[in-house]
């Protein structure tokens, strides 16, 4: 530790700390533009000048490391004069168009000019004119005249994200921030430069000219569109959310968001959203539909018993809402048929669930089927950050397609579809075959797992000998659960932590509220429904036809259930089959706690009112309890937070039972269908994001495309076990030959209709409507 004095206060900080951070520790504000802790020192803007005793000139606080006995003055006439001079220079070519600038009122250039700047500039000559409101991409605008050339955006895209799509062009006063060759930036992290820009140079297109800092309502919220659960600030104006920003949380997150989360907020005002209600095919006031559903509920409960009612929760519901449903189901309806909507069969025991801190501490990361860039984008950034700071971190992939990306090198062991668990188990068997848990795990395993023995050996070594192992798992194969339990048992005290990357984003919260998140319980409900044992199926935010892995079973179940009821933001697939559809109040409209993939509880405060007749779940169940003539009071004091585990879901004992991995059978065929989540295709529409939603979401390797006669993109029909779907595919050079990737949950290409595995693919002629 090094001791130094800043403005007469003594502070001790670790070696290598910059003066700006040491001052921040004392609560002394040193003005900065270019410096950002995540990006490291640069010293481009010269705004952070401070006086260090025994140094001949003013020093920049963001690039000068502390030294023993240093005496720093952050505010004296000399420093003020220095800052005044820097600001006068920064403002020489600044257009001073604050009244039309979106940043006006929350701009560091304004703030520092008021605090330190000169009252007037002495520069009389005409200002240099540059591009105003030029596009960076569909979502980001650049105003080059307002730029102070701090280079935060350029460095963020180049160094942090690894997609160098922004650069500085020109020399001297002509220097501008622009995109490479004038092409739009395609990175899904490009939106973060809006938050990073300290001045009004990089602006959000959806928020352009929309509001000013003093006429908005800014609430701390949570992005619920993927399991990462990024911390956000939702800006509401006139009853609509108009902007979402990242919210940095000290020692937890930098506040990065992906474009899906940053610009996908407009689902709340999408015309497809249910804001009234539907009763037997016609639009009806929500109150009337609620009453009718209440009558049906009481009819079913009296004639057949409450156990003939099943509830499935999913979508963007909060933990509290799930708890209220659970109480209503158990106390009033007396049914135990409760489940969480799931789109993959895997389940992760709570005891194995890791946190993001495990990513930051890992010396080995294994991605089981999961492509973080597509499924959990901000985790991809975290992984990249880890790899940058600790280049020795090993990143492995075990997946049916190559997970390697230029921004994150992944050593992928490409398996056949459905072979991930078997390959993991085989790798474990090679290095720890004598361990009891591994022996049990691999009891049914035949030795013919197709994989390179050397790679298998290396993966096994990594799994066993790494000091801190963190895994990401996409849940496609339920057998992986036992592999993970066995792995944790073999590794003993060395941390083995897993982050699940599947949806619904709040599934762990539903589990906290008392729902079972295992797919077996959902399957049992659907089978019972198919067998005619369920009279009423209530879906809360769940769209089973789109989500559940076996679409045929859902269809059969729907056919047999007399009362199909849905509540949600959007009408479920095959909406005409539902007797009643009720509107849901979403996140940013009701207070709610959401649990992310770490098992962390995070609170989202409402910033707007729910639109139309949308109400929280609570008002529906209160009405239904009334219809059932039951005195039912919701326990108001239930709190998802636990006394001991703080903001994490309570810990559970480590499971020890290891089931043997079943040996998958390799079907014969040239092309295997693999699937996984893609955040822009998660079924929640957004008009703003439309330019980013791929027209050809499927991915095919150039080799397979050439074989099928597809040049850049085309339409293919995939047939498997007598069922077929049509998918628009694009050629992707990074795709593994012999595999075709189709995202989960697309309505037009429901991959859950055919499941993953070997498919027959036929190219179809594309019909373009004129």
């Amino acid at each position: 530790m090094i001791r130094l004095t800043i403005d007469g206060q003594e502070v001790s900080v670790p070696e290598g700390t910059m003066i700006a951070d040491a001052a921040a520790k004392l609560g002394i504000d040193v003005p900065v533009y270019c410096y950002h802790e995540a990006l490291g020192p640069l010293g481009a803007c010269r705004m952070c000048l401070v006086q260090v005793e025994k140094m001949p000139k003013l020093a920049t606080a963001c690039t000068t490391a502390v030294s023993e006995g240093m005496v720093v003055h952050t505010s004296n006439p000399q420093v003020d004069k220095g800052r005044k001079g820097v600001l006068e220079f920064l403002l020489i070519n600044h257009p001073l168009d604050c009244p039309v600038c979106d940043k006006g009122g929350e701009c560091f250039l304004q703030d520092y000019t008021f605090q330190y700047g000169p009252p007037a500039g002495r520069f009389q000559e005409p200002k240099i004119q540059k591009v105003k409101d030029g596009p960076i991409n569909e979502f980001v605008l650049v105003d080059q005249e307002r730029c102070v050339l701090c280079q935060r955006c350029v460095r963020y895209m180049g160094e942090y994200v690894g997609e160098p799509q922004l650069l500085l062009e020109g020399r001297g006063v002509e220097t501008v921030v622009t995109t490479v060759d004038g092409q739009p930036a395609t990175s899904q992290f490009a939106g973060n430069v809006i938050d990073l820009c300290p001045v009004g140079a990089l602006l959000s297109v959806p928020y352009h000219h929309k509001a000013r800092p003093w006429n908005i309502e800014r609430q701390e919220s949570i992005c619920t569109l993927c399991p990462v659960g990024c911390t956000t600030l939702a800006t509401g104006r006139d009853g609509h959310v108009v902007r979402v920003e990242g919210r940095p949380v000290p020692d937890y997150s930098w506040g990065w968001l992906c474009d899906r989360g940053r610009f996908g907020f407009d689902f709340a005002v999408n015309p497809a959203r249910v804001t009234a209600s539907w009763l037997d095919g016609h639009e009806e006031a929500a109150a009337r539909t609620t009453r009718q559903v209440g009558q049906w509920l009481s009819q079913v409960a009296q004639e057949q018993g409450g156990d003939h009612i099943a509830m499935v929760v999913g979508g963007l519901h909060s933990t509290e809402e799930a708890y209220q449903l659970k109480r209503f189901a158990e106390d009033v309806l007396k049914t135990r048929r409760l489940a969480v909507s799931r789109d993959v069969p895997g389940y992760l025991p709570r005891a194995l669930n890791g946190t993001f801190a495990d990513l930051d501490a890992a010396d080995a990361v294994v991605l089981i089927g999961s492509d973080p860039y597509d499924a959990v984008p901000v985790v991809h950034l975290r992984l990249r950050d880890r790899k940058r700071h600790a280049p020795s971190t090993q990143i492995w992939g075990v997946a049916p397609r190559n997970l390697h990306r230029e921004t994150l090198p992944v050593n992928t062991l490409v398996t056949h579809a459905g072979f991930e668990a078997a390959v993991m188990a085989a790798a474990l068997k090679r290095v720890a075959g004598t361990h009891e848990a591994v022996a049990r795990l691999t009891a049914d395993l035949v030795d013919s797992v197709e994989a390179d023995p050397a790679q298998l050996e290396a993966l096994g070594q990594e799994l066993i000998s790494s000091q801190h192992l963190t895994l990401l798992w996409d849940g496609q194969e339920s057998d992986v659960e036992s592999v993970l339990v066995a792995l944790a048992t073999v590794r003993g005290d060395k941390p083995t932590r897993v982050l699940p990357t599947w949806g619904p984003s709040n599934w762990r919260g539903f589990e906290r509220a008392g729902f079972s998140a295992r797919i077996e319980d959902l399957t049992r409900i659907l089978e019972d429904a198919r067998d005619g044992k369920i009279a009423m199926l209530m879906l809360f935010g769940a769209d089973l036809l789109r989500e559940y892995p076996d679409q045929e079973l859902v269809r059969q179940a729907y056919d047999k259930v007399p009362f199909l009821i849905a509540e949600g933001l959007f009408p479920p697939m095959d909406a005409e089959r539902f007797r009643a559809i009720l509107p849901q109040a979403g996140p940013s409209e009701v207070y709610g706690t959401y649990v992310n993939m770490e098992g962390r509880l995070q609170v989202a405060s409402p910033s707007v009112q729910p639109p139309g007749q949308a109400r929280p779940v609570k008002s529906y169940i209160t009405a239904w309890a009334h219809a059932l003539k039951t005195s039912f009071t919701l326990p108001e004091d239930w709190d998802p937070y636990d006394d001991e585990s703080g903001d994490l879901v309570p810990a559970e004992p480590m499971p020890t039972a290891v089931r043997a991995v079943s040996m998958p059978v390799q079907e014969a065929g040239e092309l295997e269908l693999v699937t996984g989540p893609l955040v822009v295709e998660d079924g929640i529409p957004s008009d703003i994001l439309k330019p980013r939603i791929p027209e050809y979401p499927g991915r095919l390797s150039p080799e397979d495309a050439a074989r099928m006669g597809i040049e850049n993109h085309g339409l293919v029909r995939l047939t498997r076990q007598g069922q077929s779907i049509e998918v628009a595919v694009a050629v992707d050079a990074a795709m593994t030959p012999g595999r075709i990737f189709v995202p989960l949950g697309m309505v037009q290409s429901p991959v859950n209709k055919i499941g993953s595995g070997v498919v027959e693919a036929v190219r179809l002629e594309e019909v373009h409507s004129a």
Partner: protein
Amino acid sequence: MLDGIKAIAKGLGTTFKALTEPRDTYPYPEKRREYSPRYRGKHMLAKDADGHELCVGCGLCEAVCPAHAIRVVAAEAPSDKPVSWTNRYSIDYEVDLIRCIFCGMCEEACPTNAVRLTPFNELAAYDREAMIADKEELLRPAIRK
């Protein structure tokens, strides 16, 4: 008796004296007083010489208004159809003249000198709705007859 006549004569004397004195009141509305050009009456939104609106919808008037009488909604104008002198303009600008206390702080805050208080002060209406001056109304400043 004599005292009574005296008193009446005195009273009438005052009355007749006042008849010839100059008047302090005006026979409104036939005759109207001249106001100082600095008088703070109803608002107006000014245009520049090219006919473009000066208001860019920055909302500073809204922020500074102590009576919360102003509401501004800004928008971006298409580049071929400019409304104001820049691409940002106010699509909605309302002043609630019942709330307004005519302090003139909006005028003072306006960076483009768009909102101005005119000497027009004949503000009356049959309902409250009519007392909310919208943008159309403010762009055509009322003139006293």
